[in-house]
């Protein structure tokens, strides 16, 4: 027999006695009857089902959002990763869950940790759509007076706030953009690890970015032990070999704590996405320069470090400007006269090159698209080069990067929308900017992390996009980019096996289907 704790509130009897003693007036019968009716109407008569909707008559959630909220509460007991694809409304799902727990009285205090740029958006949505009185935390607020608090994780982890937050005893923790916690050695990760998580939601469209260990660390924040401990997990997944069986098993376990909706599974209408890899052939001169750079590693220990070599090779696939910039920096570290002379010769050879083959391809695409185009590059030197190259061809462009201030970013976005044909963005520009008015994206350089591609595409392929979206992935053949492509295919394969299928990000027919076709 289970022992049950029963708690009572008991100020009613006192009120009753005061009235019996004529110390106070008896209350209104009308209010008595109406209160009873209201209580009856709002009674939570079932352990199951969403009660929150009764309190949100103006919210019209999509079916997949309601199902997600119900699954998290009833099957996952309030600890889950919300991993819908970008643009399906993870915030709405989180809001529904928070509201449900508030209505049911299971959550009194909640903490939402979001990137600084999204804090106000969270506060607005919770207040306006869910009537949840959330506030953005500011310096000098008394934390214990706030029930529903939104703050940036970078602020929360600071010593000045950390201990206060730990002391607050929040019932529900929501973490937006949770893939930023993939590295368990960061301060952010450790901060969250030591936070009490009675209920906890991790929001990310990309729970794996590079490898399954990131997912392990994410789930170990949520439910330590769900994927075993680190030693057993490492034993199953270390090395580069295939882990087909283990990955399938992992997929099962992951599904117990993760909800993931895909665009095509929802009743929302989406324009289609055409993705293609465009192989590019270097000119003879470019290829020669590429080989010469690759041979530098024989010349000096400064170049033999594989990271520097890979950087140079990738830059060579992007622009000679980016390559020269790095070479010049490296030259400063050289002491040997012969080495310096060789670098100078390489730079001279680079400078004699005509326009980059990739830039020419990009120009072809822009001309053919005859529409607004976004170009993503990994290098600022390439960004500048492309801007002047396109200008020489009569195409207007604006630069964009994450270091721009908010007002400059807004200004650039506006220029792009109204005046320029092309926006050239570096990686850090790909977060938190929405450009639905554009439907062509050129991935000029390929990142190592496939989820960055998804992030970039998500800037245009989202609610409000009326056109089909065209993605052009450029890769130079017979260079490091072949290797990057292969790695991207492999990582996408792991993601699809463990997390679930992905919308196309790399090519229209993905590699796995390719292989199957070849075999069949």
């Amino acid at each position, binding site marked *: 027999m*289970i022992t*049950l*704790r*029963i*708690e*009572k*509130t008991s100020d*009613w*009897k006192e009120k*009753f006695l005061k*009235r*019996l003693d004529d110390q106070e007036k*008896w*209350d*209104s*019968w*009308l*209010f*008595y*009857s*109406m*209160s*009873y009716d*209201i*209580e*009856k109407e709002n*009674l*939570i*008569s*079932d*352990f*199951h089902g969403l009660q929150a909707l*009764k*309190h*949100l*008559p*103006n919210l019209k959630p999509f079916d997949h959002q309601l199902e997600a909220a119900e699954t998290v*509460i*009833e099957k996952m*007991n*309030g*600890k889950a990763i919300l991993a819908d694809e970008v643009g399906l409304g993870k915030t709405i799902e989180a809001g529904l869950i928070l509201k449900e727990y508030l209505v*049911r*009285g*299971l959550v009194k205090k909640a903490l939402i940790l979001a990137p600084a740029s999204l804090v106000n958006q969270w506060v607005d949505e919770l207040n306006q759509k869910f*009537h949840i009185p959330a506030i953005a935390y500011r310096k000098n607020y008394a934390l214990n007076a706030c029930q529903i608090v939104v703050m940036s994780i970078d602020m929360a982890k600071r010593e000045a706030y950390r201990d206060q937050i730990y002391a607050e005893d929040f*019932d529900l923790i929501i973490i937006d953009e949770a893939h930023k916690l993939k590295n368990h050695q960061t301060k952010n990760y450790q901060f969250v*690890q*030591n936070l*009490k*998580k*009675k*209920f906890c939601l991790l929001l990310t469209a990309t729970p794996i970015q590079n490898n399954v260990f990131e997912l392990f660390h994410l789930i*170990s924040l949520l*439910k*330590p*032990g769900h994927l*075993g*401990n680190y*030693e057993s997990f490492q034993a199953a997944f270390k090395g580069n070999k295939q882990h087909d069986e283990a990955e399938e098993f992992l997929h099962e376990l992951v599904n117990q704590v993760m909800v993931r909706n895909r665009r095509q599974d929802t009743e929302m209408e989406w324009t289609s996405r055409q993705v293609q890899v465009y192989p590019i052939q270097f000119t003879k001169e470019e290829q020669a320069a590429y080989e010469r750079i690759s041979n530098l590693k024989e010349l000096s220990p400064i170049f033999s470090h594989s990271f520097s070599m890979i950087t140079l090779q990738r830059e060579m696939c992007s622009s000679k400007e980016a390559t020269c910039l790095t070479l010049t920096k490296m030259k400063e570290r050289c002491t040997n006269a012969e080495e310096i002379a060789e670098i100078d010769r390489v730079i001279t050879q680079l400078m004699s090159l005509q326009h980059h083959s990739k830039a020419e391809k990009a120009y072809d695409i822009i001309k053919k698209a005859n529409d607004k185009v976004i170009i993503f590059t990994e290098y600022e030197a390439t960004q500048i080069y492309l801007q002047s190259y396109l200008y020489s061809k009569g195409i207007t462009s604006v630069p964009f990067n994450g270091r721009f201030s908010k007002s400059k970013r807004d200004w650039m976005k506006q220029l792009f929308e109204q005046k320029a044909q092309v926006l050239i963005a570096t990686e850090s520009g790909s977060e938190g900017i929405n450009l639905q008015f554009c439907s062509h994206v050129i991935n000029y350089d390929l990142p190592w992390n496939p989820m960055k591609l998804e992030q970039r595409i998500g800037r245009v392929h989202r609610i409000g996009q009326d056109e089909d979206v065209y993605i052009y992935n450029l890769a130079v053949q017979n260079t490091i980019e072949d290797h990057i492509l292969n790695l991207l295919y492999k990582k996408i394969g792991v993601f699809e096996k463990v997390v679930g299928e992905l919308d196309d990000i790399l090519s229209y027919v993905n590699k796995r289907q390719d292989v199957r076709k070849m075999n069949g």
Partner: protein
Amino acid sequence: MYPQKIHHYLQSFFKENDCPILSDHAHYLIVQLTVEMDKKMMNRPYYWQYIEATGDEPIPAQLTFITNKNELTEKITGEVIHAGSPRLSQIFSLMNEMGAVVRMYEVGKSGVETILTPWVIINYKVSYYSHQTKEFIYSLGMNLMTGEVLKDFQESLLTRSLQTEIPKHTFCLPYTIKPENAVDRLDAILENVIRKDDHTWAEEAKQRWEKEKMILDYFYEDTTDKPERYQIEQQALAEQYEANIQIDIINGGLFYLAACPS
């Protein structure tokens, strides 16, 4: 909760509190608050301090409530009231406070002498909660002459005509059980009912808790010095899955009734 119903609740609330309704349209209301209601609803203690200190003429607020925004064609600005809106919650909680304890008398047939029996009636709200919740209402009444106890009492009152003053030609029996003792006895009876209820939900929560504890322990199996967060995680599991029961009293009171309700 339908807009018409909310509209009706608001009308009744302000009328009962003597706040003049300046304009009563199907989809909106304009209400003049009294000083007392302004103090209760508007949360502006400094204004009232100032008025009391200076002796100035108080100007209680005038509020416009839009109860059905979708149907509204007129150009009206005001607070939009709907199920779940903070203002409505405030009004409901005020209603609850102002209707907590009543004393009522049943009105018999006119001209006929009636004998009324005293009852204590309490409306309880019981919540079962672990990682989930379920609520029940128990409306229990005790006859203060005989100690007889009846349930679902509130619903049976709906068929009776009640008023706050003793009607003419009516005799109220004295009570043999003191009302405060009746309260204690009803509390005890309810607790007994709850203990005998089916608590599979609590058993299941406990099993889940045990399972989660095992998973957690496995994570730290090879760690000899368990970090502080292990304790924090244990604590979180306890708060998530521990089965609890909460008893609240919605309202209740002393009722003089003609014949036993059955």
